[in-house]
């Protein structure tokens, strides 16, 4: 009896060849990208997307060419935060056109393809029942397309804004192989630290991604009137300890500032106007540490 491995061809489909073509496209795209940096967290709502947008702006202000892939396929928010939702990607030589934000950051997101603000992301299928069997495969393919089929041109850094959790990490590691590094974001609370600890392990041990370091967001509140800074936990060393326990650098703390949230809601650049505020300085300092790590 013949086994699967004795069958020499697949009936002319050349599925393996087609997959190899997909991966070749991806490699030739990434060949023009200096660094891929994934912004991740096990915890939702800690500011991954906000920091991705702000860091991309910071790198653009330092005259680097940067792009963002919104890898949150079902909950995209980067297009809104960078003010590019009007852009409809269209075929151009070499791929699909990315959007370009006011600060010159190139952006590709599911959001740019969807008709309505409230449109759910649904894929053609005879039935949406039992979609759990195939949906992860579509999403993996779509993430590959968003990275590989966008006409980015030459980039110094391509940021990847990941959805919360660590489900997408092995996918991403498969796609970008040894080209990506991860920045992990946490909130200031013990609950946040606990969940994030697992995702650091998932990034480093399971997906094998090098971790640039840990950032704590919304650590303190800065009064916009008098400048007084109020910490969630002034003595708080939780995030630093978490980083030390996983042997990764602690990259710093970012204060809460409603102006940052407002700029994100409006899709406006933040650093160009409020770079002097404590939150602006903290983001620029974070960008500087990342630049050192990436040797840019």
């Amino acid at each position, binding site marked *: 009896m013949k086994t699967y491995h004795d069958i020499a061809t697949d009936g002319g489909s050349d599925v393996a060849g087609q997959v190899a073509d997909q991966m070749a496209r991806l490699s030739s795209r990434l060949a023009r990208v200096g660094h891929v940096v994934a912004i991740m967290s096990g915890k939702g709502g800690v500011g991954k997307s906000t920091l991705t947008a702000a860091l991309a702006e910071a790198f653009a202000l330092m005259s680097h060419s940067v792009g963002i892939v919104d890898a949150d396929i079902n909950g995209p928010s980067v297009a809104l935060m960078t003010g590019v939702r009007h852009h409809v990607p269209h075929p151009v030589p070499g791929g699909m056109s990315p959007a370009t934000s006011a600060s010159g950051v190139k952006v590709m997101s599911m959001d740019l*393809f969807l008709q309505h603000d409230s449109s759910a992301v649904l894929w053609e299928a005879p039935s949406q029942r039992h979609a759990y069997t195939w949906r992860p495969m579509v999403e993996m393919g779509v993430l590959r397309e968003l990275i590989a089929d966008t006409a980015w041109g030459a980039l110094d850094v391509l940021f990847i804004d990941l959805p919360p959790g660590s489900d997408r990490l092995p996918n991403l590691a498969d796609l970008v192989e040894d080209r990506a590094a991860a920045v992990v974001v946490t909130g200031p609370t013990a609950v946040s630290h606990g969940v994030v600890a697992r995702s650091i392990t998932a990034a480093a041990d399971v997906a094998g991604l090098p971790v640039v370091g840990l950032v704590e967001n919304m650590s303190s509140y800065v009064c916009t009137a008098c400048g007084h800074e109020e910490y969630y936990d002034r003595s708080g060393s939780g995030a630093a300890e978490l980083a030390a326990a996983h042997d990764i650098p602690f990259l710093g703390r970012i204060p809460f500032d409603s102006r940052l949230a407002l700029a994100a809601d409006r899709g406006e650049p933040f650093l160009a106007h409020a770079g002097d505020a404590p939150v602006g300085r903290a983001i620029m300092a974070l960008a500087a540490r990342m630049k050192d790590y990436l040797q840019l």
Partner: protein
Amino acid sequence: MALQEACGPFEGTMSIVYRCQACDYRMAMLTNQMETQMVRSLGVKIGGRAREAAPMETLRTNLQGKRQEVAVPDRAKSASKCPFTGVVTEALEASQLQWTAGAQARMARVPAFVRPMVQRNVEDYAAQSGKMVVDESVMDAMKGQLGI
């Protein structure tokens, strides 16, 4: 073994029957909705590609609720010379429509050897009339076709 018939997809399920010319032994291969959909989800073409994939082909082709301005790539035709994969791909590419149980039952009465052709004609007619579902009214309108 020779390919005898390929049926479907009806709501994502397909059956493909082979027959031995010497002893008339028949073997059927069935796919369920999930299997059919899983193959489509890989972004590869069963039967091979005649030309390179368009950029973001999976996303642009399969996303529902797209902005109207999003250009959808032409469906890339398969390159296969293999009758099996050719038939399967053609059927998959043709069928984006849902079939009601009544319409399926009537299609099942069509002789197997012409069924793929009749199915294609019915679906073309439904698509031209702007219908998303093949129901008995579509079958009635196509009554002239053999056996419906």
